[in-house]
């Protein structure tokens, strides 16, 4: 069972109080994109065994979307952070680096 702390209301919410929103930090392709890029944007998702960045919504609580950095293998949660960002904040990246040196995920490391 995942327990994620919602960064908006501070509640330690268990999985059943949340809604999974899939992969985080996806860049929207739009008018002018190539067919390949648009297809990737719509359908291609990472499915790592290890560090992953996701969107979750505190659906039964404050209703806000937020971001989570966690490990899909051990279920360790590195941290949760605001939805108002296009990349993982430095303190989250440092925390992951401390535990998993040399990690990378998409364009982030």
């Amino acid at each position, binding site marked *: 069972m995942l327990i994620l702390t919602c960064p*908006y*209301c*501070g509640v330690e*919410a268990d999985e059943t109080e949340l809604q999974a929103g899939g992969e985080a930090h996806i860049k929207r392709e739009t008018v002018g994109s190539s067919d390949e890029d648009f297809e990737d944007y719509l359908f291609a998702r990472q499915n790592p065994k290890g560090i992953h960045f996701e969107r979750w919504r505190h659906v039964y609580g404050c209703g806000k979307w937020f971001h989570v950095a966690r490990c899909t293998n051990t279920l360790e949660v590195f941290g949760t952070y605001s939805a108002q960002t296009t990349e993982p904040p430095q303190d989250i990246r440092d925390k992951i680096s401390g535990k998993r040196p040399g990690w990378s995920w998409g364009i982030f490391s």
Partner: protein
Amino acid sequence: MSNAVSALQAKTYAGFAEIEEAGLRGMITLRGDLSSTKVKNAATGAASVDFPGMGECNCVDEKGVAWMSPDELLVMTPYADAQPAAEKIAKTLAKTHALVANVSDARAVFFIRGPNAREVIAKLAPVDLSPDRFKPGQFRRTRLAQVPAAFWMRDAETFELICFRSVAGYVFDLLCNAAQPGSEVGAF
């Protein structure tokens, strides 16, 4: 004017905790910038209580203000006062970015009373209800079995719980079932 009645009209159940549908209650949703003095004053002015901190509810009798999310409050009043109070808040905030809605008829309210009231809630919500983690004054939006609900403690032995009116019957049945004599867990 129609004769307003609450969903279960004060139905009660005496289990190892006492369950009571609380009847009609005035509820106003107020969304806006909660750091704005104007928004704060509009809420506290209508409910005559202090402004709640994050995850808290301040209430006295039927009046109160609950912190619902970083941009949402629930203002409670006696049922008959809700419409005029909502209109007054809307007028006060006419030039402020805010949303005010009288949602009284969309909700149901329950009391769960008794020394084991905590146990009834703990059976139904994914919330740590140990006495050192959930105390009077704290407010929690969560789910109760399969439906959204919110609750807080009036005092050490009284929970007040709100849910959507459309699921009032389901929530009452849940609470009664969880409070069945003989089903005490004794966790706290």
